[in-house]
């Protein structure tokens, strides 16, 4: 796409924040709404290709994608007004990226030290003769109880939390609305796209773009919205085919299909 999309398919990312950070760093940018708007396309084209991820992971990627779409739409259409909540989610993402970067930086200290100069503890003495010392609690029934407790806590298949499911479902609506808002803003402010004036801070990169190019950018952005929407629907469908379906029905939330 524009600005030369990076080939990122072969790399493995720990999650959406890891992916975003590496996209920003590859372009040698700092964490800001401007840089996030610039890497949004790369991010979405990556998410598009991750169908094989566990469902929880895809959900995480999509939640971040929706915030990126907000940032991107604001950068394309500076006159688009965002709600307080939307503005909040943008600031939140920037903060999270900042602290996550810090964590990645200090994790290098751990990598440097781990296993380099080890403090060894004493080897347990092999000469100690065991002295049979039972405990009152040791009955066959107590053993069975303990065993059952262990088996209950054995790892089970991943289930999405109610909060995530709710968020993902409200996202579909959000994307629909955003599509409407972008289209509306496009009609109302068509002169903005004549390319004769730029001026707004976030349109810097596209300053000299021709009108045709600008319309193209907006159209491809609408396509991006559609992509994310498809992703959301996919997550929802997969989710509903799972255990979570029962849970969500009791929540009384609408069931998209």
């Amino acid at each position: 796409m524009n600005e030369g999309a990076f080939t990122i398919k072969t790399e493995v990312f720990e999650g959406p924040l890891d992916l975003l950070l590496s996209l920003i760093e590859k372009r040698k940018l700092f964490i800001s709404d401007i840089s996030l708007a610039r890497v949004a396309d790369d991010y979405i084209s990556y998410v598009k290709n991750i169908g094989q991820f566990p469902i929880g992971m895809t959900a995480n990627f999509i939640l971040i994608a929706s915030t990126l779409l907000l940032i991107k739409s604001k950068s394309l259409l500076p006159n688009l007004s965002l709600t307080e909540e939307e503005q909040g989610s943008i600031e939140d993402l920037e903060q999270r990226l900042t602290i996550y970067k810090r964590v990645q930086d200090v994790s290098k200290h751990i990598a440097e030290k781990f296993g380099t100069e080890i403090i060894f503890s004493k080897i347990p003495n092999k000469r100690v003769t065991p002295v049979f010392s039972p405990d009152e609690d040791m009955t066959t029934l107590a053993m069975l109880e303990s065993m059952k407790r262990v088996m209950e806590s054995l790892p089970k298949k991943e289930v999405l939390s109610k909060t995530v499911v709710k968020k993902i479902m409200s996202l579909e609506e959000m994307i629909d609305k955003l599509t409407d808002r972008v289209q509306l803003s496009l009609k109302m402010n068509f002169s903005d796209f004549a390319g004769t004036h730029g001026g707004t801070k976030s349109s810097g990169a596209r300053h000299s773009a021709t009108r045709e190019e600008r319309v193209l950018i907006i159209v491809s952005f609408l396509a991006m919205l559609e992509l994310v929407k498809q992703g959301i629907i996919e997550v929802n469908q997969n989710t509903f085919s799972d255990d979570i379906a029962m849970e969500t029905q009791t929540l009384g939330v609408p069931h998209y299909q």
Partner: protein
Amino acid sequence: METPLSTKIEAILFFRGDTVTVRKLAQYLEVHEEKIIEALKELALILSNRGIVLIQHNEEVMLGTSACLSPVIEKITKEELSRDLGKAGLETLAIILYKEKASKREIDYIRGVNSGFILRNLLIRGLINREEEKGGRGYIYSGTTELLAFMGVTNAEHMPEFESVKAELEQFLLTPKDSETETNAC
């Protein structure tokens, strides 16, 4: 002459070989915990420049061989040392170590992914501990003394940038926000 407390503690730690809590030491020696903490400072001082060091971490103490003698001991140990942590392991350990205690929710929120798998892996390797969170909402994780030992550090505070990063993490997590966003039920 009465044997100094630091001497007694040294003997107990040597005998036990693994970690002993300050509370246990106070119990064994029938003195107040403050006395133990004082004596531990003394012991750490006595042991500086020796082949043995004192690790202090989260109310626990342990004796170990000095980090700079690691090559000598590595030559005679039969234990297989697994040094590979991976990116997820490093990030998770960084959060837990620099924040001193972190809940799964906090770790997930900072990393933006579910950390259940990596936490389980670190638990099995004995690098982190967990305890139930008050109110039974989940678990709180902290680094083990073995983790510090494996890094050759006698106190978590000796990690580079410890104070500043700890403050930043706390500040970040303090800001009220919907930290449930990205976590899966646990």
